[in-house]
C-alpha cells in the first residue's frame, strides 16, 4: 500500500473508454432475457394487476368526486381535490409535517441504533445469539400488537412509565400522559417504531458486516489505526451498500406508517399525530371522500417516488450491460 507500488499501477491502467450503448433489442436479448420472460411473466402480471393497476386507479380517482357507494356516480372534478387538500383541509399539513418528521427521525435514530447493535453483536461476546434474537423479535411482531403493548405501557393509570414515576416519587403517575399530549403523541408513537425496527436494521447491518474484509481490518490495525479509524476508513465504506438498503427500507417503512398510529392514537389527540397514510385511509373509508383520499395517496406516491427513484437508478446501474 505504498506510493512505490501505486505509481506503476496507475500507468498500467488504461484510460476509461466510453462504451457505446447497444441497441435496445440487443440489450433485451442479451443474457437470456427472452428465455427468462416466461418465468418472469406470472410475477409481472401479478405486479401489474395488484400494484400498477391500483396505483393508476388511485391517481385517476384523485381527479373525481366519489362517495364510494356503487350507486353513486363518479364525477370528474379535475384538480379540485388537490386544491381543497392544499388550501382547505385542516389536517393535511399536520399529517405531511408528521410524515416528514417521522422519515427524518427514522433515518437517524433506528438506523444508528441498528448499526451500533450490529457492531456490538458482531464481536464474540457472551450471549451474542441470545441478544441478537431478543433485539430482532420486535421486528417480526404484528405492528398492531406492538401498538397495543405500547399503549398499555403509556397508560397513565397502570402503565409502566406511570408506575416508574410512582416508584421514583414523581407524583401519582397520572401525569405521565405521552399519548394525550398533542405535542408529544407523535414522538411517543415513534418510540414504539424505533423499538420495532431497530432490530431489523441490526440484522441487515450484521449481514453487511460479514462482507467487510477481515484482511483489510487486520492490516489497518497492524498499521496502528484506532477502532474509530478502522470503522471510519474500512468498515463503514464497506458497509455503504447496506447503509443505502437500510436507508431506503427505512424511508419506505416510515412513509407508509399506519398500524402503529391507528393502534395507539388513531391520529389523535385532535389529529395531532395524524400521518399521510392514515389520513388518506380516513378520508376514503371513514369519511367516504374517495377523491380526497386518493389525492392524498397520490401525494404520498409522489413523495415516495422522489425519495426512492434515486436508489432504484443507483441499484440498477450496476446491472446494465
Amino acid at each position: 500500500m505504498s506510493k512505490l507500488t501505486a505509481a506503476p499501477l496507475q500507468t498500467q491502467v488504461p484510460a476509461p473508454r466510453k462504451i457505446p450503448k447497444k441497441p435496445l433489442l440487443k440489450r433485451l436479448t442479451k443474457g437470456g432475457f427472452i428465455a427468462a420472460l416466461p418465468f418472469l411473466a406470472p410475477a409481472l402480471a401479478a405486479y401489474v394487476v395488484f400494484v400498477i393497476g391500483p396505483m393508476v386507479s388511485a391517481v385517476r380517482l384523485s381527479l373525481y368526486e366519489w362517495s364510494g357507494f356503487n350507486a353513486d356516480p363518479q364525477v370528474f372534478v379535475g384538480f379540485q381535490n388537490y386544491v381543497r387538500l392544499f388550501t382547505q383541509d385542516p389536517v393535511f399539513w399536520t399529517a405531511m409535517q408528521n410524515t416528514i418528521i417521522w422519515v427524518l427521525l427514522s433515518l437517524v435514530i433506528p438506523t444508528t441504533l441498528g448499526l451500533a447493535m450490529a457492531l456490538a453483536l458482531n464481536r464474540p461476546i457472551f450471549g451474542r445469539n441470545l441478544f441478537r434474537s431478543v433485539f430482532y423479535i420486535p421486528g417480526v411482531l404484528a405492528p398492531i400488537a406492538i401498538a397495543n403493548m405500547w399503549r398499555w405501557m403509556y397508560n397513565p393509570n397502570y402503565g409502566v412509565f406511570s408506575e416508574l414515576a410512582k416508584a421514583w416519587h414523581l407524583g401519582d403517575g397520572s401525569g405521565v400522559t405521552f399519548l394525550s399530549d398533542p405535542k408529544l403523541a407523535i414522538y411517543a408513537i415513534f418510540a414504539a417504531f424505533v423499538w420495532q425496527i431497530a432490530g431489523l436494521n441490526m440484522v441487515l447491518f450484521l449481514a453487511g458486516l460479514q462482507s467487510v474484509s477481515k484482511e483489510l481490518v487486520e492490516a489497518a490495525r497492524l498499521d496502528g489505526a484506532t477502532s474509530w479509524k478502522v470503522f471510519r476508513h474500512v468498515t463503514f465504506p464497506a458497509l455503504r451498500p447496506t447503509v443505502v438498503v437500510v436507508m431506503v427500507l427505512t424511508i419506505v417503512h416510515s412513509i407508509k406508517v399506519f398500524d402503529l398510529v391507528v393502534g395507539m392514537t388513531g391520529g389523535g389527540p385532535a389529529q395531532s399525530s395524524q400521518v399521510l397514510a392514515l389520513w388518506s385511509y380516513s378520508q376514503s373509508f371513514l369519511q367516504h371522500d374517495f377523491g380526497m383520499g386518493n389525492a392524498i395517496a397520490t401525494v404520498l406516491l409522489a413523495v415516495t417516488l422522489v425519495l426512492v427513484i434515486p436508489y432504484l437508478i443507483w441499484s440498477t446501474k450496476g446491472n446494465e450491460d
Partner: protein
Amino acid sequence: MINPSSPSAAAAQEKVITDFQAANPDITIKKTNRAVDAHKDALRTSIGTAAAPDIYDFWAGPGLGGELVKNGASADLSAQYTEYKWPERFTEAALGPVTQYGGYHGVPWKLNGEAMYYNKALFEQAGITEVPKTMDELNDAAAKLKDAGITPIEFGGTVNWHVMRLLDTFLEGYCGSDTFDKLVTRQANWGQEECVTKSFTNLQKWSKDYFNSGFIGINNDEASSLFFNGKAAMALEGDWFNAQIKDKATKAEDYGVFPLPTGTGRMYGFEQAMYITKDSKHADAAAKFLDFMMSTPVQKETLGKFSTQSVNKEVKPTGTDELTKSWEGIFADAKGLYMNNDQNLTQSQTTEYWRIQNLVATGSLDPAKAGAEFQKFLDSSK
C-alpha cells in the same frame, strides 16, 4: 351487527337467532359482529357489492343511517310494514327515525337514551345531597367532587364520541333546543352564537379539572373501569350501561342515573334500526326474521339487555331495580329527543367537530375560536 354492550346482551342476541332458526329451519342466519368504528367502515365498503349483508344494523340519524339511505343502500320496506302490520307494533318515538327519509327505511330495533350515571357513595362523600337539575348544579357537583379529591367523571378519548356526549350536552344546555337544532342543520352560525363559546369554554374547564387524567389517550373500556372501581364518580352513558353495571359492578344499587340537566326537557339519545339492503336476494326471509326479532315475546325476553325500553309498544319495562325505574322516568318525562352530533353531522363534519372538540379539551385551542373554526369548515364543505 354492532358488538353487544355486555356479555348478557351478546348471549341474548345469540338466543334470538337460535330460536328463530329452530322455528324456521329453511332460513339460516349468519351474524357478523363488529366494533363501532369497524362496523361503520366495513358496511360502507361492502354495501352495494356482493359482500353486502341482507340485514344491517345501523344508527338511524341523518349522518349515519341517513347517508346510506341517501346513497340507495337501504330498501324501502313499505310493503313489509303493511304485510306485518309494523306501524301498529312500534311506538311513535321508534317510528320517527325510520320514516324521516320518506317511506319506511329500516325496522326500529332499539331506542337508547343517554344520561349521567353516578356513584352514590362518592356523591355523598363530596357532600352532594341531590342530583343536579340544572347546568349550574352539574358544574357545582363536579367542583365539589374535585374538592373532595375524587375524579368527577371518566372519559376515554381515543374514539372521540364519548367526550362528544358532554359537548353535545353543553350545547343543548347553553344554546337551548331551537338553536341546537339550527346549529346542527346549518341554519345557525357556529361562530356567531355566544352559547357555542360558552359550551366549548365549559368543555375545556371540565377536561382540565374534572376528567380522569390522560383521558384522551385511553379508550372507553379503560375509562369505564375507573367508574366500576369507584375511582370516578360519573359516567355519561346510555341505558345499555345498566346491563354493564349489572355484569361488572359488585352492587348495582350503589349506582344511580339522572337525566342530563340541560333544561330543555329533551332526552339525549338515538335509535338503532335493522335495515334490509336494497339489493338483498333474501328480502322476504330478512323481513320474517326482523318480524320475529321485534315481536312481543322476543322483545319481552330481551328487554333490559340492549336498552331499558322496547320499541314494541306492547312491551313495558318490568324491572324493579332502581336503575330501570329511573330510566322509565327519563323516557316518560322526555319532551322530544336531541341526538348525538355524530348522527346529526356528516362524517367529514363529525371528524372536524371531534378535532376541534379535542383541541379545546387538550387546551390547544382557545374556546372562543372553536365555533368559528368549525363554521369555517362547514362553509368550505358541501
